[in-house]
């Protein structure tokens, strides 16, 4: 227990140090890619909880992200500036004040996204497979059209002037949290129940796993982190537009987890980083960029249908115990 505390503190210190160092060491373009990698890691690992671990097929992740992004932006722009003033008046350093505001806004955004996750998780009681997939897709599109029609958040013009509070520390911390949650879940009773639902829902139910509860839980947790990713995204780019959150964004995240190997946490991380960098690396070939990206995707799927890592996990030199053995892959 003590060793874990020490590691957590060391990790936090390392994040803070990197937070100071990286913006100075990297040029702004690379730094932006790094931040976007982090946000995509949060998105991919959180979607992996639903699609990879629980075997439910959700393609509405962009909707949850949009809810988190817009909610947090409204919170930090309209609700909390007073708090910032009060804190500066009380002598709290500005960086800490920004961090507190971002944390609160992120939590509110995540909570609202989680609530939406609950609302979408409930129909999964009745729907299976492709029908569930298309309902989540529809949900994401409905969210987008609703935002498009709310004039208070800019509608089609987009929402500009979101305070620019996201830095490497917060992105790294949330990515760390979502990865840790996933790994701990994998080894826990709850995670095993989710895996059982993925492998064979009927058998799981027969063995007394409350399938409904776990499916909804997976949706809620996943939506929460998607909301968090949205909040970080909003406070990084300072500008939001509903067209960022089309179903293509959801598809992008699905591509990441399938490419990484469905159910593999480290695979999701690797693929999220790779698929964020790839389009940027292909900028050199300009107009052929997206064509090459699409062709690579097809070729990878044909040559490595199980994803980069399959269902296995990348073993880190410092991981102590054996990673949780995964049941054999079944096509879902």
């Amino acid at each position, binding site marked *: 227990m003590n060793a874990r505390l020490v590691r957590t503190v060391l990790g936090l210190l390392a994040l803070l140090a990197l937070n100071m160092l990286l913006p100075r060491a990297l040029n702004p373009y690379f730094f932006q890619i790094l931040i976007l990698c982090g946000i995509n890691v949060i998105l991919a690992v959180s979607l992996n909880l639903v699609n990879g671990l629980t075997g439910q097929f959700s393609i509405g992740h962009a909707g949850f992200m949009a809810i988190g992004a817009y909610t947090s932006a409204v919170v930090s722009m309209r609700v909390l500036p007073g708090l910032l003033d009060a804190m500066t008046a009380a002598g709290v350093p500005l960086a800490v004040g920004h961090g507190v505001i971002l944390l609160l806004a992120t939590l509110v955004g995540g909570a609202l996204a989680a609530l939406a996750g609950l609302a979408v998780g409930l129909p999964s009681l009745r729907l299976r497979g492709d029908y569930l997939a298309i309902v989540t897709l529809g949900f994401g599109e409905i969210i987008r059209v609703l935002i498009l029609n709310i004039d208070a958040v800019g509608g089609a013009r987009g929402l500009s002037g979101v305070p620019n509070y996201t830095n490497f520390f917060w992105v790294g911390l949330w990515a760390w949290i979502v990865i840790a949650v996933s790994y701990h879940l994998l080894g826990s009773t709850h995670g095993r129940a989710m895996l059982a639902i993925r492998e064979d829902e009927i058998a799981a139910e027969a063995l007394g796993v409350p399938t409904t509860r776990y499916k909804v839980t997976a949706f809620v947790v996943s939506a929460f982190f998607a909301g968090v990713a949205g909040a970080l995204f909003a406070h990084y780019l300072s500008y939001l537009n509903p067209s960022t959150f089309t179903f293509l964004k959801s598809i992008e995240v699905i591509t990441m987890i*399938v490419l990484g190997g469905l159910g593999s946490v480290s695979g999701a991380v690797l693929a999220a980083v790779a698929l964020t960098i790839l389009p940027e690396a292909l900028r050199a070939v300009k107009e052929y960029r997206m064509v090459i990206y699409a062709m690579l995707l097809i070729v990878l799927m044909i040559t490595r*249908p*199980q994803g980069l890592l399959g269902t296995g996990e990348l073993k880190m030199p410092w991981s102590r115990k054996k990673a949780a053995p995964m049941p054999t892959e079944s096509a879902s």
Partner: protein
Amino acid sequence: MQEFLQQIVNGITWGSVYALIALGYTMVYGILRLINFAHGDVFMLGAFIAYYAAGWFGVQTHPSTGGALLVLFTAMAGAGVAGFLIERFAYRSVRKSSRLTALITAIGVSLLLENGGLLLFGTDPKFFPQLVTVTKIPLGLGVTVTNIQILIVVVSLILMAVLRWIVISTKVGKAMRAVSFNRDAATLMGIHTDRIISFTFVLGATLAAAAGVLVGLMNPKIDPLMGIMPGLKAFVAAVVGGIGNIPGAVLGGLIMGMAEVMVVGYVSSTYRDAIAFVLLIAILLFRPSGLLGKHQAEKV
């Protein structure tokens, strides 16, 4: 009242276009259990082939019924070839993998067609040639219908009748139904499943291309990304009708077209893209396998 009737006429027109695209989704899903995300882009391809064909054949300068038909058939043939190639070189290789892998491949093909389209055809919208001179025909009660709208409905009906004939009365159709019922058993009965799957893709692609040409006549601005939204909505239409069910796709398409036109007419055009999904969720909550889909008992 007059406006309402006019909206119904427009709704039927859009509905038959959605139905044509939805048929391709539903046939492929029925046979492979694959959501063919690239189908909407084949629809776009059809419109572009027609655009260039109209230039080559000179129909652009001399509109005539025969020329319009020639353009329509060229687009259908071209898209059919594309459908064949897509199945042969992308989907066939992942047919034995998990369904998600196949889905990502479909998304890859879709991205390839869209971005390849942007590269080949250019990013600026093209103006679809007027293959037929537009005339307005009054129907009474102040409702008018254009000859293009009649053409759209008639061509769709003919194509659906041909499809029905193929599926119900020909040997290939019987094989298609057999493959959709149970692919392994069909193989054991000596059906060339690969050939039947190719044929299904070609059939779906030709219908989508026809829809592309018809939409081009109605909304003359075409661009390489025009297939995304109609494709998605047609897919929703197929699901609403009960995916894998051919009459269901037609019914779903008509419902989608009607609902969309009504929302644009009476609520706000900004909600146009949401109504399809609201309807989808509402219908699936009460009929989880779509309106005409059969509920399948779970096998343990």
